[in-house]
């Protein structure tokens, strides 16, 4: 086996700015699906609230193809279950999941 490095640590200096903070209302972008995604179909186009800023990392669409892109801020977004599933029986329950900055837009 060749000892060939195909990926290296991303440059920490080239970060995209974090646009959102906890409490902000955001909507998940509804981009086309092609080749790879970690953005669930059920969350696309749905609005939620930033529950927390987490860490900075590469975005899946770059990392999955070994592109050393810039780091982006990740967020935990909280949705009302009722907004995700119309038939959901309770108004109070929420679902939290995680997205990088570029998959979100301000509401």
């Amino acid at each position, binding site marked *: 086996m*060749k000892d060939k490095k195909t990926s290296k640590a991303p440059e920490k200096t080239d970060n995209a700015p974090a646009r959102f903070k906890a409490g902000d209302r955001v909507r998940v972008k509804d981009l086309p699906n092609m080749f790879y995604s970690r953005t669930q179909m059920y969350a696309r186009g749905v609005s939620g609230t930033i529950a927390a800023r987490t860490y900075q990392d590469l975005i899946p669409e770059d990392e999955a*193809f070994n592109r050393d892109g810039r780091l982006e801020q990740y967020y935990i977004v909280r949705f009302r279950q009722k907004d995700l599933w119309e038939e959901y029986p309770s108004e109070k329950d929420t679902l939290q999941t995680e997205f990088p900055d570029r998959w979100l837009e301000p509401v």
Partner: protein
Amino acid sequence: MSLRSELRQQYDIIGSLQPATHVPQNWNYEIPSSLYRAYMHPPHDVGGQRDVPLQYEEKEEEQWELNTYVTCEVLGWRGIWNAEERRRRADNDLGYTLYLGMPYYGRWIWAAARMLVDKNHVSLTELLEKIAEVKSRHER
């Protein structure tokens, strides 16, 4: 597969894997956009899909599964791929039929082999001959 009866049986199994929506011609230039979106849907995005209740079972990993896991991790430590590329290959690139049909770690080792061939770390003939050699060792 030297027996002709085995060959026919194998064609029948392949036939049973045909997609549910099967257009027998290959000149269907127009497909509805909802069908196109379904074709482009990443197989691992299973949330929200209907399913039947499943029996939860506790099961220890088998040795080949542990070996697969370690092999894939070592390939990562050596910089040959990263975890996201592994997911892309094992959860997406293999397509619905394999995604739904193969065991969990079967998808991992399929992805590792495909990646090593894609990146020219092993040639396909090298891989095929090795598999045949190991197989004959086990059949002896």
